[in-house]
């Protein structure tokens, strides 16, 4: 395997803390709606583009200790308004919009995530064959049970997520140095 070439493209409005581990070809905050929304990357998060590049949209929140890994050659695309909670690990080749990966959940690279999905706290999802998670799928509990969410309450949840991101945009730079992209 050739050595990993680092290339970081960070949107000027994204908030990426200095103490973040980045490796490989990474683009942060390149969503369609980036006019209003910023992606927040907390300190101690890890983003590893081992094989192919990683492109993260806008409005995402990546919390402390979250690990995002791309093991495949193809581009790993993460959409907008996703929340990666503390200590989760995601290797999905694609992640749509408005998903929540809860604390210490682990998602294997055989699972693609569409939109409005929830992977519950501590849940381990390791499909043996490639699988695409339907919209509004909720995986929860120690047995990784699944159900389909009605979607009721999603507007309020997204509203809350935006307020969450907005608050972090104000507070994080007060206590952390920020990272800029190569180009900026």
């Amino acid at each position, binding site marked *: 395997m050739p050595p990993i070439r680092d290339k970081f493209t960070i949107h000027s409005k994204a908030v990426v803390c200095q103490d973040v581990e980045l490796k490989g070809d990474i683009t942060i905050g390149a969503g*369609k709606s980036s006019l209003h929304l910023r992606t927040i990357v907390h300190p101690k998060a890890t983003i590893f583009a081992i094989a192919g590049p990683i492109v993260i949209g806008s409005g995402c929140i990546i919390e402390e200790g979250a690990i995002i890994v791309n093991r495949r050659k193809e581009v790993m695309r993460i959409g*907008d308004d996703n929340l990666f909670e503390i200590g989760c690990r995601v290797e999905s080749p694609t992640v749509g919009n*408005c998903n929540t990966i809860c604390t210490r959940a682990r998602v294997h690279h055989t699972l693609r995530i569409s939109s409005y999905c*929830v992977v519950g706290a501590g849940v381990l999802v390791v499909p043996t064959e490639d699988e695409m998670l339907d919209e509004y799928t909720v995986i929860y*509990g120690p047995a990784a049970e699944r159900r389909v969410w009605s979607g*009721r*309450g*999603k507007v309020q949840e997204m*509203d809350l997520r935006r307020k969450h991101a907005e608050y972090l945009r104000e507070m994080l730079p007060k206590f952390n140095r920020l990272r800029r992209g190569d180009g900026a």
Partner: protein
Amino acid sequence: MAPKIEYYCPCLSESPHPPPPNRPSSSYSFHPLHNLFFCEECDAVRCNRCVSVEVSGYYCPNCLFEVPSASVRAEKNRCARNCFLCPNCRNTLTVVPSDPPEDVDSRMSPIVSTTLGEPPFFLYCNHCRWDSAEVGITFEKPTGLAAQLQKFEDSAPEALEFERLKEHFEPFLRASSSSSALPSASSHHVHTNPITAAASSALARDIPGVGKYNPLSRSRVGREKGAHRQEYPDYKSRVEVGTALSGEADVEFLRHLETVSQVAALEQRWTNSWVSPLSASDLKPLRIPLQSKKSKRCPSCRHILIKPEQKAQSVRFKIKLVAANYLPAIAVTLPHAQAAIEMLKRTSKTTSAAAQAEEQQAAGALIAGHSYSFHLAFTNPLYDPIQVRLAKAIAPAQTAEGDEAAERARRSTFQIQLPSAAFPVGAFAEAWEYDDEDEAMFLDDDGMEVVEARGKKGKDGRGKTRSVGIVEKRANVTIVSGEVLIPKEARGDVKFNMLVSYTYRSDDPEPSEEAQTGTPSRSHGANKGPEMKNFSFYTVVDLGSIMYREEPKLTADL
């Protein structure tokens, strides 16, 4: 498995001596120290099996509201505020308003200010995202939800039937309770609080058609019952229970099943009071069941042993007579196992927890044909020093048939050596009150050899250091060492009963002055002169099971 020690409560047996530890039933007589109580009146250990328990208050575990006992029954033992369980995953539900009408491009729009509290409201599970609108339950106001749900519950045919049954028997119950208060019951009510009294009188009530066990007045009750039966008409049920109709519907439902999860799982139906739907999609939110705080009394003198504070938020106790405040805490360790585990930690390269546990177990094994020393660490909870004496409890002589059998038994059972002399354990004090010089007085270089003169120290014939006696003494902890010798033929667990006696300074005045008996009390007290008292209790020490190396001639021998 790590070696462990448990304390004996004699409530299950007639004799004060514990049962032989190798009997499976003996485990019911032994308890971890932290589960035991101590009655000062009776000067005895009490366990959860022998104490009498009474409810001192009901509360909701979610909102911590203290429910008056009068409303517990009306609210059917469940929270009547806004506390609900998710019928799908049993997480607690939250009340949320409906989403505002979605704009064409709401996701892309900047922060929308949520219009506050748009009805209808519904219950929402943050964990599995179940919501009550799925089963058609929504609310116009976010308050008083339980009352609305209870209306559903109370209108269920089973609940109605139960109400009618209660109505039917009401006049009879009133008549019987007014006519004859059971004379035997009255003596019991001396110490009970109103809640317990209500509960026990409800249980003691004579129910028509149900025989009440009363060995003394059996015939009398029987006659009364017969008499009442004629006075009251038979009850006519208004619901058909278990009709073939519902059975057929269930079969139909099962026939069209696609996934197992469509059927409500046992855990999902468990917490429901009445008949719960078979289909997972029909499950309704449940009001959270109430919990109770309980106090416990000594079975013989009825003094309170433990009593929680009334407040649901409080985790403290008004009265707490736990054995840990009276008896020395004992911890057992096997030094050879600990040393081996330390070695493994340093050298081992295996990473899996299972493999590590296995390695550690192998390292700490007790192998037949060897002898091992074990450590007993005594921690004194009293404000005065104590003198402890140990003895191996000898099981009430099981007469062996013939000398040969006895000899065989002797050869195949392990031998325990305990320090024969009494040893001191320092007084309990706050950590900063201990002098530094107290510590490490008896510690020597390798921590194993015995320096304390009173211990059964010294060397046996071959010059090998024997280690029965005090190993270490610091603050209010004394560690003594014993030895177990496991013959080649021995099998099973190294488990033995140990009698622990200790003398302590009693604060009580001369016994003649008051009827109080000596109790290892923790309280300070200024009085005339120290008086020494003695207290003994039994324990069971479990060092682990005996391992043996496969030797074909041995198995042939057995």
